[in-house]
């Protein structure tokens, strides 16, 4: 069988090197076309009327004036009378008109009456006794979960765990299916235990999950010699993709739809649009060349994406573009759940951690939200954890780069850092002392901590808390560890070698700016022994073989594996045709530097073009797949470790925090392109500085609306906020042979904890919550009486 395995370092021409991103030139020149840039012939402009209230019922909608306005082509009611609105900014009516100003005027002319209901937008600590144990679910609960985009896996777990209040009839099940319930969810409902008595209980906004315990927490705390207690947390933040969510839809005939959508999930969109639009998925073509950011928020067509197709249909199938305005983007198109915790953690005098106890809470909007994986990285032997989910009206949560991990890192690493301070230990020594709890990655962390320490100059820079101050400027350092899975997703890749020597690759994947295009071409070119620029790559269309959504750091492992298998099979197929001409067996051939030759014998060789001419009249097309057990070895893997350190300077008069230096040491198995990998880490550090110092979705308790839905008050880090950044990728022996593992999520996990710990080290007190704004820093001083 052909050898599909990754070549070792001596036999790689491109893989593992620093290669320039192939789509940079079209991006820097403004030629790259994003969904927002697509202008179809005769295109109409759509706008959406949104509910201004956080919790309300739609009473009536009068669109008669808008309908009569010149230039208005179609009006589509998204949520009609009697619909319940669960967050401010939710979609009510879509309008399509000849231009954007006219569409805006039409939205203004629509009159909607609402019945306001009493909302909750706070995620403050639940009042004592307010939390209710989760009970059996009603069909309304399940419909709400669908409405709130709760992942199917999570819904199935809850249905199995808690049962249901009544047995639904087939009509109800069909309704749920139309609302987006997957087959697994329907199956779980059919199999669920029915608890009819639970149906009449009133529902609380606070839902307590069952306590989780490990070992004997009580005994361990009794034996602990030093105990640290603290409060830690991170608020809700938004994705703030620079290209907002949206699409352009057009009906090419009565039942065929062409969609240009800004999405992380090209191959998965048609399937999600088919049911609500009542056409087969095969009739829906989805296309995207470039995407202006996703970060976990763009996997679904969303209610506005379906509405775009509906309003296009009402406009006679004409193309309609609806891209969200910036305020809507921040209000409704993506939020990371908050997480807060009161933590007690105990250790022996020598620093050995023995016990963890936490009461955590947080919100993911109307769907509540789960507990982050705490304690993080360190498997503390004795644990007791309780979590309360707050269901409120801030809008639905979405996966945000490394879902739940940045929250877990802050809660865990800050609590451990406070314990180290109480033990009078350098946190680096303290983390190393307990590194065996970081199984199975303790060896990786140990090596990375050593490298990070050298790159930061940790031993020179670390002082006990609050003891490195000159005038009003306090300096400090902090660190954090993180982990992630990152196994490659399912991916199909079609690779064709044409008799004229040209090569093309087709794959229904997408490049989020992570370097996916570059890496696919590197793998194919390295395997075929030809230059990258001789291969034509086409991605971003449902016409091409399906490839998974780009989330959870799964893309690089998926697309590199399917491309490698396709390229190896294509190369072997070519060798079989070429061998007779070279008077050799196919197994004796190699393809290198644009020639196909007998291994080690350059006198018996053909140029790539000559070799391809032996294919005859027909091109050779092969499909590579991931996973593919029939073509071992496994080319992708799961489980990475990373270490980050931060150095900060805090102005103790103003409370302003400046990050002075950050170090990221990251493992992700075999790195395909070191250049774009390093860029991902640099970007993650910068995004991390941004959410550590500035970002928060601020909700107004009175109106229930977001107070900062713009880019002035929802502040992103700018160039002026960026310090010296040092990135070190772990490569070579011990790393490369593990296969390709994803990198998008891991480096964005630790910045919050590392920066918070650096601030605590600088000023001597803990600022409990991110972002570390001046008011919070000064507040922490005040509370400590400093």
């Amino acid at each position, binding site marked *: 069988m052909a050898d599909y395995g990754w070549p070792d370092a001596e036999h790689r021409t491109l893989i593992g090197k620093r290669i320039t*991103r192939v789509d940079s030139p079209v991006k820097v*020149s403004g030629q790259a076309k994003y969904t927002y840039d697509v202008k179809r012939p005769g295109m109409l402009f759509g706008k959406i009327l949104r509910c201004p209230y956080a919790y309300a019922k739609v009473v009536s909608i009068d669109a008669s004036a808008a309908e009569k306005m010149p230039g208005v082509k179609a009006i589509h009611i998204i949520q009609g009378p009697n619909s319940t609105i669960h967050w401010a900014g939710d979609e009510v009516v879509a309008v399509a008109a000849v231009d954007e*100003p006219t569409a805006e005027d039409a939205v203004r002319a629509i009159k909607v009456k609402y019945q306001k209901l009493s909302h909750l937008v706070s995620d403050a600590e639940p009042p004592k006794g307010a939390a209710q144990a989760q009970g059996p679910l009603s069909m309304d609960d399940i419909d709400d979960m669908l409405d709130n985009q709760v992942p199917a896996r999570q819904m199935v777990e809850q249905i199995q765990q808690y049962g249901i209040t009544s047995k639904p009839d087939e009509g109800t099940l069909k309704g749920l299916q139309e609302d987006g319930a997957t087959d697994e969810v329907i199956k779980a409902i059919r199999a669920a235990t029915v608890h009819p008595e639970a149906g009449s209980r009133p529902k609380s906004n606070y839902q307590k999950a069952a306590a989780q315990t490990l070992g004997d927490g009580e005994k361990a705390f009794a034996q602990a010699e030093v105990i640290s207690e603290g409060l830690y947390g991170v608020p809700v933040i938004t994705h703030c993709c*620079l*290209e907002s969510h949206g699409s352009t839809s057009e009906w090419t005939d009565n039942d065929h739809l062409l969609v240009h959508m800004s999405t992380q999930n090209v191959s998965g969109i048609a399937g999600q649009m088919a049911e609500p639009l009542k056409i087969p998925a095969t009739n829906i073509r989805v296309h995207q060349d470039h995407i202006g950011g996703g970060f976990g928020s763009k996997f679904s067509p969303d209610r506005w994406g379906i509405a775009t197709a509906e309003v296009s249909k009402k406009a006679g199938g004409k193309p309609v573009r609806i891209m969200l305005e*910036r305020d809507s983007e921040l209000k409704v198109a993506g939020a990371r759940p908050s997480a807060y915790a009161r933590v007690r953690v105990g250790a022996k005098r020598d620093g050995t951690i023995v016990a963890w106890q936490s009461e955590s809470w947080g919100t993911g909007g109307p769907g509540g939200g789960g507990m982050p994986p705490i304690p993080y990285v360190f498997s503390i032997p004795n644990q007791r954890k309780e979590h309360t989910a707050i269901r409120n009206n801030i809008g639905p949560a979405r996966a945000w780069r490394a879902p739940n991990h940045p929250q877990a890192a802050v809660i865990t690493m800050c609590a451990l850092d406070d314990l180290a301070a109480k033990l009078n230990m350098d946190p680096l020594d303290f983390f190393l002392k307990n590194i065996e709890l970081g199984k199975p990655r303790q060896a990786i962390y140990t090596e990375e901590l050593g490298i990070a320490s050298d790159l930061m100059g940790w031993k020179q820079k670390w002082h006990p808390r609050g003891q490195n101050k000159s005038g009003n400027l306090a300096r400090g350092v902090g660190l954090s560890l993180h982990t992630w899975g990152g196994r490659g997703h399912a991916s199909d890749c079609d690779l064709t070698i044409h008799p004229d020597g040209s090569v093309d690759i087709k794959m229904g994947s997408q490049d*989020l700016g992570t370097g996916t295009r570059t890496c696919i071409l590197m793998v194919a070119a390295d395997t075929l022994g030809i230059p990258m620029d001789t291969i034509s790559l086409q991605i971003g269309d449902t016409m091409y073989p399906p490839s998974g959504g780009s989330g959870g750091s799964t893309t690089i492992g998926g697309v590199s594996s399917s491309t490698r298998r396709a390229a190896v099979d294509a190369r072997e197929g070519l060798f079989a045709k070429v061998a007779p001409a070279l008077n050799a067996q196919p197994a004796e051939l190699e393809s290198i530097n644009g020639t196909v030759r007998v291994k080690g014998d350059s006198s018996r060789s053909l140029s790539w073009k000559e070799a391809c001419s032996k294919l005859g009249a027909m091109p050779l097309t092969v499909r590579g797949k991931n996973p593919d057990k029939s073509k071992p070895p496994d080319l992708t893997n799961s489980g990475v470790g990373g270490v980050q350190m931060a150095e900060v300077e805090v102005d103790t008069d103003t409370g302003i925090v400046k990050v002075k230096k950050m170090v990221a040491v990251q493992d992700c198995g075999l790195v395909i392109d070191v250049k774009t990998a390093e860029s991902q880490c640099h970007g993650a550090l910068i995004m991390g500085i941004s959410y550590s110092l500035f970002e928060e979705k601020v909700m107004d308790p009175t109106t229930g609306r977001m107070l900062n839905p713009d*880019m002035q008050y929802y502040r992103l880090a700018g160039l*002026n906020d960026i310090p010296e950044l040092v990135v070190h990728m772990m490569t070579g022996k011990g790393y490369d042979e593990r296969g390709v593992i994803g990198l998008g999520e891991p480096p964005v996990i630790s910045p919050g904890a590392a920066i918070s710990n650096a601030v605590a080290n600088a000023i001597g007190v803990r600022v409990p919550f991110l972002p570390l704004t001046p008011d919070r820093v000064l507040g922490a001083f005040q509370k400590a009486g400093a």
Partner: protein
Amino acid sequence: MRDDDPNQNEKVDERSGVSRRDFLKISSISVAVPLVTGPKVVFAAGEQVPVHGPGKVPMEFTINGKKHKADLEPRVTLLDALRDEFDLTGAKRVCDRAECGACTVLMDNKAVYACSVLAIEAQGRQIATVESLMQGDKLHPVQQAFVDNDASQCGFCTPGFVVACKAFLDKHPNPTPEDIRRGLSGNLCRCGTYHGIQLAIAQLAQKGA
């Protein structure tokens, strides 16, 4: 989303005698007037002032050295005119209120936020967009430095940044790191490409581009 607050102050601007609410009412009756109208002249603040719109009015622009004509409502921004009328989509609409710089273009060689310039006011000015920087197939040195230093990821902020960097370097050919931090703080990136951008600028500054 619009928030129709019924308690909104009816603040009267004494100079014009038109309240904000009346102004909104006027602009929303745009559909009732002929599609293209010439300016009407009113007496305001002691001067004769031409009033355009609210319907579409003919406009003429010089963009990337070429003349362009369009009939647009006076409320249309330069950014929307570039993108929707002339298919120059390099400048992006992100914040739409002069906060992020993704729409940066040059107006008489000065970097401006195209989302916050009305198209009608851009007439008679030299407008240059990112599309004008390449010479044939050759990237502008700023663009090449962005490529070399991997200064774009998703790339949505990139065209605005490239234009802002060009304008900045034209003015500060030998910037200090402090100049760079201050001079390029008007553009925001979500992927976090600032590190690559700093390297790109450093490379250009050394070359004296």
